């Protein structure tokens, strides 16, 4: 929070208004319940949220406010009990729907804990290449050709370089032999390798140490610089990170949207008492 002015100036997307790009992902009236029929807990109450092309939206809030649940539903990892999610206009209606398939091809997801999100028995290169190998196999050929292999090799190396890891050193390395920051950057490279239109980063820095956080933040900043048209949804507790990356902030509280607005405006002039509390807690 101390570097607010400098970071704000550095941000490429510092417009106070939300981006005018096409809406990629739109959630309407999302409700989600957990628990049994007799003891139901409503995690999300009629939530609406849009993600536009090229913008970075940060979803913030306290623990258990529904951030992860909302973003998981929006990216098709979970289902809502009420409401709809549309990707590029198409309704996400089950895993076999056309919109869901398109979302899976065009999205990248970074999970909270890199050591559980990377297969411990797979090398970094194999994990990063997985999506590309599957797509090459689906392109109609049972065995992908040498050309495919070289293209995949180049893509994997490019993705590792983008997140600041030496491809020669990391392609054959297993998660067990990486630090938390390195493993999370491999996970980011996996999400980025197919050049997605939209990316979800679910608390990507919460499971790593301070030096790892800096590395991940640098990697995400570099990705935003190189791929300005890619939309990004970042779930985070860390307002410093949000300030550096996000164009727009959505504040969730008890499963409801408390406040939403451009990053600079919202952090400078929070309207709700809860947002003020969050900002005060982060500054403290």
């Amino acid at each position, binding site marked *: 929070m101390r570097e607010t002015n400098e970071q704000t100036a550095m941000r490429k997307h510092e417009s106070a208004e939300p981006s005018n790009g096409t809406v990629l992902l739109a959630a309407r009236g999302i409700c989600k319940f957990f628990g049994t029929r007799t003891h139901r807990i409503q995690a999300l109450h009629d939530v609406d949220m849009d993600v536009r092309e090229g913008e970075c939206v940060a979803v913030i809030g306290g623990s258990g406010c529904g951030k992860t649940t909302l973003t998981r539903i929006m990216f098709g990892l979970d289902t809502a009990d009420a409401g709809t999610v549309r990707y590029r206009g198409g309704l996400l209606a089950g895993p076999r729907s056309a919109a869901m398939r398109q979302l*899976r091809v065009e999205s990248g997801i970074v999970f909270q804990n890199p050591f559980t999100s990377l297969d411990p*028995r797979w*090398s970094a*290169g*194999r994990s990063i290449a997985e999506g590309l190998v599957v797509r090459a196999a689906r392109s109609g050929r049972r065995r992908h050709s040498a050309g495919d292999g070289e293209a995949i090799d180049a893509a994997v190396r490019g993705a590792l370089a983008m997140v600041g890891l030496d491809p020669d050193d990391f392609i054959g390395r297993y998660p067990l032999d990486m630090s938390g920051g390195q493993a999370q950057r491999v996970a980011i490279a996996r999400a980025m390798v197919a050049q997605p239109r939209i990316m979800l980063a679910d608390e990507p820095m919460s499971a790593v140490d301070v030096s790892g956080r800096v590395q991940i933040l640098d990697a995400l900043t570099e990705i935003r610089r190189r791929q300005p048209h890619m939309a990004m949804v970042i779930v985070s507790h860390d307002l410093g990170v949000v300030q550096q990356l996000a164009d727009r902030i959505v504040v969730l509280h008890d499963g409801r949207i408390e406040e939403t607005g451009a990053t600079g405006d919202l952090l400078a002039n929070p309207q709700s008492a809860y947002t003020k509390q969050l900002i005060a807690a982060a500054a403290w």
Partner: protein
Amino acid sequence: MTAVSDDGKRFKRSGRDRHATGNVPLRMRFGVIMRSMWQQSGGRFALIVMACWIAVSLLSLFWTPYPLLQTDGGHAWASPSAAHPLGTDGVGADVLSWLMAGSRTNLVIALLTMLVSAMIGLACTAVMVSGRRALASAGVVVVDALIAIPTVLLALLFAVPFGASIAVIVAACGMTYGLNMARIVKPSASLAARSAYVQAARAMGVSAWRVFFTHIVPSTFPVLAVQLSMSAGTSILAEAGLTYLGVGVPSGVPSWGHTLTTSVRLISVYPLTVLWPGLTVTLVVTALYLLGDAIRDCADPLANVELRKLAATVSRQTHNTGVDA
């Protein structure tokens, strides 16, 4: 396309390995696994016994000291001698020849039981960790119910229509060991099925079957390796028991169980003739159990640091020194 490994050896890269995604050529991986197993005393013992077993099985296809059907009534129950190193049985047949020929039958039984139990075990595991809760719950109930049926009872049931045969042993053992394996493998498979890396793979559009065979099955490897080797070892013990009961290997087909059965009636008079098949079975079963432990420790990259080092080295070397042939 060829590349050069860390120790200067050239190796051919297959289409799958041509892109440097950390894949290590199978031959190199196999070499590291074998070296690691050889460095363990249990692994070394298992490898030696396995090599001898396979070699004797192959040799018995072409040569045994005496033809199996050659008997010498005048030398029944003979003690070990230069002519008959392990003695003779009740009809004067050479025990060594029958043990050698029997090793082939037992090898086939062990391999087929392992295959059948792996197929049944993995099929049941796939159902039990399925995303469809009703199917998964039903799978658990069915497996728990079927596990209660003992191998002997199942073999007796199969023997009613089919008679005593190797297929009966394989079917009975394969089914019971497969169900046991599924129950034991299930917790680690469930853990993997719910893991973030499986979610990540599914989110990238990887099919459920591909996820099962590339992520979930490898995650059960430590348990699977031990269970499969135990299936093979226990099938040899079961073969001896079922043959003794008359529902195993049919009369006239050589097997260790058969040799044991023909000798056991006069164990108090001629104990040596029981000793040899008993010793062979004990040695091989112990070796199979130790082999499972050694494979678990040496073939899993999580447990064997040498495998991880190899992957890192090969991917570095293949990019730097890979040349088109």
